[in-house]
């Protein structure tokens, strides 16, 4: 057995041992507050067992292993439905960026350790009403204020801001230069005076995203994590830091086996649906698509183990899997006919078609809309030109509204 297989086996054993305490069954019926509390205990258990910060340096409390072990652990962890969602952004982007760009390293180390143990949560204050896909179009501003800065404006779609202790933020510090050049990157204390968090209820009924308002929020200059005007580069680094994450060819929706089971146990016009060519075609097409994504992932893992950089085709996973999941979920609901109306807003999208369906649009927009992913493939991989951008090279305050 290779070292990585042994690692996987040990991780799988540990995960199975804690699944009854923290997994899918233990979470059933919990309020969000109780679920978050369970999540914090699970995160601490991971830390104690050596499965937190797997690929982070040991001096920050990590395990000092590679992204191969990390992705291996995550792909096993995904099977049990643990309450990890609250920490995904926090440990995925802001906290690693703090390690890399935080000017006060003693402070950074303290924060990292608390985040790894699930005691503190960080959010990422990027998107705004005026800039989501067009991040550099953001309007929240920071003005010099004594020796520090004063922030005013509004952020949007900030995941888990309502539970966050800290956040990283990109703001405009100079409106007189082109939009990418006038941004600066800071961290903020989410409990500071002038910060107001308002949860946004999403279509599925849950509220994991928020509006965050900044009203004369004062920070000292040691909160700054980029040169003044150099914030966009750090923002890009933030989005690139999690290049190697466990993927799910089911698009974070139900496994195809669940669809096959449904088709086996459902009849239409007196015939089992599993004998219906329309359904069989959907099963076959979805299987072929998912097996292709799985093979891409398997080869990426082999490349990493061989010390190679995985190919750019890994970027297809989210685009292809989530939109397929959306259509398959619609079909799965329709198949059930008048039994398909039921809706449980506590159901998990990994094992419930209705939950998967109602939340699928979020999956196709958050973290890169389908259209942005297609642009990235076209521009970065295939060398096609950028779209026409009327705001290119124009000072931010001269861009027509």
């Amino acid at each position, binding site marked *: 057995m290779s070292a990585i297989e042994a690692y996987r086996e040990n991780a799988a054993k540990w995960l199975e041992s804690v699944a009854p305490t923290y997994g899918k069954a233990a979470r059933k019926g919990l309020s969000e507050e109780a679920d978050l509390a369970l999540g914090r205990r699970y995160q601490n258990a991971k830390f104690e067992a050596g499965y937190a910060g797997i690929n982070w340096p040991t001096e920050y409390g990590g395990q000092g292993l590679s992204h191969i072990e990390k992705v291996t652990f995550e792909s096993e962890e995904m099977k049990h439905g643990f309450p990890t969602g609250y920490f995904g952004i926090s440990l995925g982007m802001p906290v690693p960026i703090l390690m890399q760009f935080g000017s006060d390293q003693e402070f950074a180390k303290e924060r990292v350790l608390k985040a790894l143990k699930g005691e503190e949560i960080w959010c990422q204050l990027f998107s705004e009403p005026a800039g989501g896909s067009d991040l550099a179009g953001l309007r929240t501003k920071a003005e010099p204020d004594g020796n520090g800065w004063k922030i005013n404006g509004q952020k949007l779609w900030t995941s888990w801001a309502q539970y966050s202790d800290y956040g990283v933020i990109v703001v405009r510090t100079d409106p007189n230069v082109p939009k990418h050049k006038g941004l600066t990157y800071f961290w903020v204390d989410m409990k500071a005076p002038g910060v107001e968090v308002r949860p946004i209820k999403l279509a599925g009924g849950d509220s994991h995203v928020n509006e965050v308002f900044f009203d004369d929020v004062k920070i000292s200059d040691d909160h700054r994590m980029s040169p003044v005007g150099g914030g966009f580069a750090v923002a890009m680094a933030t989005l690139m830091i999690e290049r190697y994450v466990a993927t799910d060819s089911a698009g974070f929706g139900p496994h*195809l086996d669940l669809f*096959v089971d449904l088709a*086996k146990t459902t009849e239409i016009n007196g015939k089992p649906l*599993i004998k219906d*060519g329309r359904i*069989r*075609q959907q*099963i*076959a*097409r979805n*299987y*072929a*698509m998912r*097996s*292709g*994504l799985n*093979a*891409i992932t*398997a*080869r990426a893992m*082999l*490349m990493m183990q*061989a010390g*190679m950089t995985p190919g750019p*085709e890994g970027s*297809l996973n989210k*685009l*292809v899997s989530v939109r397929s999941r959306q259509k398959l979920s619609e079909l799965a609901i329709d198949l059930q006919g008048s039994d398909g109306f039921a809706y449980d807003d506590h159901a998990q999208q990994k094992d419930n078609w209705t939950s998967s369906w109602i939340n699928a649009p979020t999956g196709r927009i958050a973290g890169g809309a389908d*259209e942005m992913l*297609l*642009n990235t*493939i*076209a521009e970065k*991989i*295939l*060398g*096609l*030109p*950028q*779209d*026409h951008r009327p705001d290119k090279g124009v000072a931010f305050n001269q861009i027509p509204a």
Partner: protein
Amino acid sequence: MSILYDEAQQSIANESRRVLEARVSKEELLPLLESTGHYHDGFWDTAREQGWTALAVPEEYDGLALGLVELGLIAHQAGRTISGAPFLTSSFGAAKAIELYGSDTQKQKWLPRLASGESIGAVAIASGADALPRQPRVKFANEQIKGVATGVSGGLTADLAVVLSQGTAGPALVLAELDGVKRHAIESFDNSRCIANLDFAATPAEILVEGPKARAAALHILALQAVITAHEQTGGAEILMETARDYAVTRRAFGQVIGAFQSVKHRVAELYALVELARANCIHAASREGKDDFVTAAAAARLSATEAYDTAARDCIQIHGGIGVTWEAGLHLHMRRARSLAIEQGNALFWEDILVDRLTGEAA
């Protein structure tokens, strides 16, 4: 699991691409469309000279004892340049049937000849719309076959055929020499496939497998060929995606290159997705030969490769606009080939059923 190509495999890919790009051109392929029964001699000579015909044949029969991965790599390159003849796949299928199910005498007689390319093999399993018929139209009795096998790729020029026939005690996969067999050339939209109806009239035939196992054997041969064809389709889709991209970054309209319009740009990006899914499925399937899930993996490769090549043929022509539909531009060579490869080795409907039967545990 999947595999990474090793250095030897990489060099097979590079070398076959170099040779094919140098020796096969659309100017030579276009006239073949307007004549019946002619294939690209240069392509087949190259295949023999480079040892591609011997690639998957065991060493004791003068082969190189490599497998689906290596032959798939060559098929991928052949798909990029458009293979000038169908024999790499058809002879491979025939040789595999003989190797797996034939007698020592049959192996000694045919495998060295197939390895050198001196003989050409064909595989006739389908009966019209039915890629793997329960009641084959060709009948087998008294060591002879009778009946017509329709639309056999390579059948016009092949020296031997592996035929799925109906015997007295169920199906029989048999081997027949085609010397003296009446062949009716099919005037096709893709004439270099050398497609023919084979009219067996008391043609001597030797049993490879008979009874219930014959059907499973025929499916296995189809699956092996399907993986090779899927590589060829993926190669075709890949070059079309690149061709569409190259055109989109040079052709200008409305003051900019057309690749700057998202309707064009996203179409090419979608082709990239289809090509990469097909490629990953092909590599995976090639690595599963001999494993329990081989047929499932082959079906997935086949489905995604057919979708990739068909979509790429449609979209590449569309992106080219008027020039794309001209005879000279030759994109129709790919459009035609996408269709013939979509049919050979069983169409998508067939493989969808094979796949779902396996996923539901209903496979025969």
